[in-house]
């Protein structure tokens, strides 16, 4: 009992974690202050829209941390983490859909609008229970977790690794995307779930709720970060890094590699699901495009740009890329794909350790937690 508590608390003894948490909390406090205390119209005023945008970035950051956990420390390049993110998002979306109640366009007391539209007469079995927040929030973690558990069990047991694993994770999210596009699936098909009204009784359109969601996402990111740090600094994390660098050798040393992989992969999927659940109420929609292979591979770019196997690098990368995306798509939408594509090439060729690597170089210190990490060894 005591040792497990220590295990979770250990990250608080690290300087990097404290700095990260300090910066994160300070940023959250600053945004809150500028939003609440500064009058609208003042140049320093942060609008509800911007708060919402920051909230979105933070949920992406949590997703990037989840990807970094498996890619940076386990050497598994998942091109399907968007699937877990979207599943968590759909679980949350189902809860929000049920909260609409009879205020939908068709005014049906139970059925969401799209089901009335498709002439369904009753709720499909998997929609039951989502009117209860507790159950829905549990499913946010359990649905992606279960998928990761089954998929990971099959994959790691038969030692599918490296590029092969990447490709089948991509196929997984692609198959899910096709499936969720079907109206018969009961998840709103092409349009997905949208038109949400309130969460836990708070109006989703009010700026207070938006601020609350932003802060909740920040807290979730902090907790997720600490959890991941706790995992990678534990003995389990050492085995993971060993697996990443020399899987066969670790196996010969007597470790059941696939169990470590399965555990970390599932935890990462659940974090991704949580990120999705926080993302959906802030953007107000979830549709099958979140399953698209392009989105999943973009997440990997955030991590690569920020710096693999650092965790805080993933956060930096997610925020940087998405901020750039917001700016680019607003100013010159055509150029965004050039920029994104160029980033992929430049980062992999010239910046294998990402922004975090640059920072570490600057302070003549090794990037925290990267251990024996170097591009060549980690890529196998």
């Amino acid at each position, binding site marked *: 009992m005591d040792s497990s508590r220590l295990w979770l608390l250990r990250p608080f003894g690290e300087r990097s974690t404290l700095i990260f948490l300090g910066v994160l909390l300070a940023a959250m406090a600053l945004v809150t202050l500028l939003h609440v205390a500064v009058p609208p119209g003042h140049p320093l005023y942060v609008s509800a829209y911007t708060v919402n945008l920051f909230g979105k970035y933070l949920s992406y950051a949590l997703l990037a941390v989840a990807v970094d956990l498996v890619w940076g420390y386990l050497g598994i390049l998942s091109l399907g983490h968007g699937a877990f993110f979207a599943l968590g998002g759909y679980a949350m979306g189902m809860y929000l859909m049920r909260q609409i109640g009879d205020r939908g366009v068709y005014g049906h007391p139970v059925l969401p609008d799209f089901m009335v539209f498709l002439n369904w007469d009753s709720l499909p079995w998997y929609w039951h229970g989502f009117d209860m927040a507790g159950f829905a929030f549990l499913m946010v973690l359990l649905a992606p977790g279960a998928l990761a558990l089954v998929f990971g069990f099959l994959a790691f047991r*038969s030692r599918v690794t490296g*590029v092969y694993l990447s*490709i089948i994770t991509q196929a*997984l999210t692609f198959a899910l995307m096709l499936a969720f596009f079907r109206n018969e699936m009961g998840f709103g098909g092409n349009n997905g779930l949208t038109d949400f009204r309130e969460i836990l009784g708070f109006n989703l359109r009010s700026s207070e709720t938006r601020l609350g969601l932003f802060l909740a996402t920040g807290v979730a990111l902090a907790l997720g970060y600490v959890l991941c740090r706790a995992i990678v600094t534990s003995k389990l994390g050492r085995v993971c890094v060993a697996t990443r660098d020399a899987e066969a050798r670790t196996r010969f040393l007597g470790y059941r590699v696939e169990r470590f992989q399965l555990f970390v992969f599932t935890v990462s999927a659940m974090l991704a699901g949580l990120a999705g659940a926080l993302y959906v109420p802030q953007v107000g929609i979830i549709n099958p495009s979140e399953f698209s292979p392009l989105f999943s591979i973009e997440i*990997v770019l955030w991590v690569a740009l920020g710096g693999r196997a650092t965790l805080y690098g993933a956060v930096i990368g997610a925020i940087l890329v998405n901020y750039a995306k917001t700016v680019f798509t607003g100013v010159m939408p055509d150029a965004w794909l050039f920029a994104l594509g160029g980033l*992929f090439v430049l980062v992999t060729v010239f910046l294998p350790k990402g922004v975090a690597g640059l920072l570490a170089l600057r302070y003549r210190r090794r990037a925290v937690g990267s251990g024996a990490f170097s591009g060549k060894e980690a890529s196998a």
Partner: protein
Amino acid sequence: MRYPPMRGPTSARARAGAAAGGDRASTTRGAWLRLLVLALALALGLSVATPGAAQDGDPGGEAAATALLEALDVSSFPAKGEAIEAIVRSDDPRARDWLQALLDGRLQRTDEGRFVVVLDNAGREWPVEDALNGEALGEMSRRDLDRIGINNALRSQLRSAIAVVDLYAADVDLRRASAERLLGEVDGELAEPLVEVIEAEQDARVRQRLVQALAIHRLEQGEIEAIADLRGSLHPRVRVALNRAMSGDDPLVADAAREALNSIEQMLKVNRAVETLYFGLSLGSVLVLAAIGLAITFGVMGVINMAHGELIMLGAYTAWAMQQLLPGQPGLALMLAIPAGFLVAALVGVAIERGVIQFLKGRPLETLLATFGISLILQQLVRTVISPLNRTVVTPEWMSGSIAINDALSLTLNRMYVLGFALVVFAVLMLIMRRTRLGLEVRAVTQNRAMARSMGIRATRVDIMTFALGSGVAGLAGVALSQLTNVGPNLGQNYIIDSFMVVVFGGVGNLWGTLVAGLSLGVINQVLEPWAGAVMAKIIVLVFIILFIQKRPRGLFPQKGRAAEG
């Protein structure tokens, strides 16, 4: 026989005359016809038609022909119907053209009373030609022309009449098409003369059709022997007739019809299976084409090129560009696009290899990300430079259309060409890898780079050549795909995941595996589609591959021995 299915006492009497005329006729068609017409003229004493021309032995006579047309220009529709009959009976060589023009509303009369055929009725001035002698009369104002109107009843009468006229055409294709139209349309009036036509018919296929058309009529009359003629026919009309016979009064006929129908259903099942197989192989050949280049760069060299799909896209755009450069010659342009598409894709491939991939040697996951970035850039480049919209690549004439194997099965030509093309590309690649110096060096470098280099093989050069080959094949795939799907910036994206699936499923580094995997995945997809739907079939196939890789991580045909170490 030469009767439009016009009901009424007039045609009833005509039928008797026709039968009588037929009995006495000599075997030559023309003489028989003339007799028929004579009999008719005598029997009916028709006032509208002037079969005098035929009597005079002057079928091309101007006066007679004018009279025939003159009879059309009356206000009463029944009278027009009779005039049409007269034209049919006239044995005039221009009869078909007149009837067709009348059906299309192009048979018109000038203010001077001349009959003309309008060649093109767009605009105000219409080019016309004389209906009688085909002389071009230049353009005429539409106000100077009067259309000879018809109603719906006449329209269907005209269609049947044209079909009957065509049965005597010298052109086999016309006769075939006409016989085709007669299936299920034969009635009492036509039945008896049809026997004669069948006897005179030389072409086996036309004759078979006519026999079937007649048999349908006989079956309707309750003749059980007719079923023997219908057995084995896959035409839907035949099935309709048999179905009707099944629910008829005569139990003997009903049983025979049921039995015949069952055997037809069996044959249909076989045909459907063949069709599914064909579509499956066609889809499979597309997958093979898309994946075979990847099988070389990824499978043999171990380089993950996520921009492979965009190389395919560039190949397809090359085909489009060639057709833009050579307007009016889509076939030639397509042939030239084959080497051009190969070159374009190969050059871009080499640029990618030299510019990015060579710096990421031994880091497959980074290569994956970098090439993915390149794919985004290429897509956006095409979107910006050319257009975000789809472009159409024309299918040359010799590639369009289909081959009808039988009534239920026809194979589209373009798919057949692509299938053949895929096999040729595969064979050539196989030869290159197995029988040339380059193939040998590639295999040496992939098995043991250091050793190959110390044997004097220039590994870098081999890398470039191999990558150019794999990329060029992607370009070829694009040229072929331009014949089957829309050419747009997203073309490649749609194939990249499938291509990787094919390569991984078949076994990395094994070209045969890619061929088998591509074709079988295509067939599986098509077999699943009818009961699962297109999207579900695709999902099932993806899940199947994901599960398959768990079971056999190295694919259908895993490499053995030293090659497996890579």
